[in-house]
């Protein structure tokens, strides 16, 4: 994917770019999906790129409609979820913990 800054968002999206996005998003998409998604994302991106038509240079961005900041609750101990219940929905557990597949792949594994 190219990374020029502030490029006007009018250009389409290539199949290779979609493959890159899928990797970033941890989606093992198939070759057939790449073809479909590339075409569809291209249509959607061209439609949403219309936001670029709005002259909004000095307009502050809105991330959230409710202007609340630093919301804290009272520092009072409350009952938390029992460990067994927290683990009950996990695909795999070991010794009262979530079990994850190994972190390093073969090439990275120092042995």
């Amino acid at each position, binding site marked *: 994917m190219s990374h020029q800054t502030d490029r006007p968002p009018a250009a389409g999206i290539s199949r290779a770019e979609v493959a890159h996005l*899928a990797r970033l998003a941890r989606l*093992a998409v198939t070759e057939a999906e790449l073809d*479909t998604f590339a075409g569809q994302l291209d249509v959607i*991106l061209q439609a949403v790129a219309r936001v670029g038509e709005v002259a909004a240079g000095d307009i*502050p961005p809105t991330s959230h409609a409710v202007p609340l900041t630093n919301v804290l609750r009272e520092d009072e101990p409350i009952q938390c979820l029992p460990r067994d219940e927290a683990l009950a929905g996990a*695909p795999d557990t070991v010794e009262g913990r979530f079990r994850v*597949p190994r972190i390093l*792949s073969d090439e990275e594994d120092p042995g």
Partner: protein
Amino acid sequence: MAERAEPTELTRMTATGIAGLVAAGEVSAVEVARAHLDRIAATDQRVHAFLQVDTEGATAAAAAVDAARAAGAPLSPLAGVPVAVKDVFATRGLPTTCGSKILEGWRPPYDATTVARLRAAGLVVLGKTNMDEFAMGSSTEYSAYGPTRNPWDLARIPGGSGGGSSASLAAFQAPLAIGSDTGGSIRQPGAVTGTVGVKPTYGGTSRYGLVAFSSSLDTPGPCARTVADAAALHAVIAGHDPGDSTSIPQPVPDVVAAAARGATGDLAGVRLGLVRELAGEGAEPGVMAAFREAVDALTKLGAEVVEVSCPHFGYALPAYYLIAPSECSSNLARFDGVRYGLRTGDDGTRALEEVMSLTREAGFGPEVKRRIMLGTYALSSGYYDAYYGQAQKVRTLIARDFTAAFAQADALISPTTPFVAFRFGERTADPYQMYLADLYTIPANLAGTPAISVPCGLSGGMPVGLQVMAPAMADDRMYRVAAALESVLPAPAPPQL
């Protein structure tokens, strides 16, 4: 031909009507629950509004209401009334899938605040309703468990994402339902099923336990067959919740009183703004005709209707389809096959990242994948300013448009949707065609303001909805206007199933 299933008297009733009978001891909550469970059993093979029916839990909850009444305990205004809950809300011990294979069989260890408040008020949860996967869609065609059918015409969509909740009302399977509205997911299904759907003020209802799609937009809200019933349910679920840091710490506007006031049919002194940008563009002629008739009716009730302009509303849809996918790409990162849900490909030889990618590939459907990738793109370095950053600025301009319009009018009106319920498959080939269903509902989500959809007649035999929009924390205003319209334009009765 399937046998016709006539709704019984109990399933035809309003929620407040049922609550009155239960409180007076004229019918037990268990009988009410059974009537609705029977109706679901008789009709849901055709409608498919429910993903999960909790016969046991509903019966027990109803029995608890009956026992409380027998013991002389005071009952909440909706005690004993059945309610259907969209499958995006966590329900303790009851499967919660969000319409996705990635959460198939997951039983949450806790209740969402909305669900906890329903239970505390003695409402009887019938089960979980179908939806587009993770609330992304306008037809339920993106549910991993198959679509819901519109009770008005089983060949057509019930709207989405909360099509199951609205269809359950139109099919007389439930008198009340709960939905979540991120870009129109309560109002659009309400409009196309001839029922009432409400998106409260953002922060007016709690997101705790609502599985997150787009956190700055997601809003739980009530669905009902009448405005008064929606108001009664609104009063149960709304109000500050310390479990949601975006929950507004202010009293809930008295929506029940406002609906009652509106039902008298008097709108003298109320000024309504007809939003120029939300009337005409992309709308079917039949929808506009029904809308104009409703505007005439509102005028006859004493309302003054003025035209207002919201010049940036034309950019709401593009801004939404950058903001919502961006937040979704971040929120749905939690589905990694570690703490809950599906895990695929963990055969001992694969590393975490590969298992994660295989799990998400197998567990997510096409629309969710599209939005995750779209959001990933919009947030990536080099594109961020032009897409996500620009969309956030447009969001500011849309909120300012609302502020300016509310200086000229007490509430704003528009059709809820540009077109009536479409046929299955009509809009799935080109995803952007599906997005257009939300053309008129999205601005209120971006601004965080409340809006209601109320039935306003038919077009080609299918229901049309009128949308009333109000300023933030003035939800009562829209209930008054909607109830007034309903008093002279009652919702048409859906055909027999």
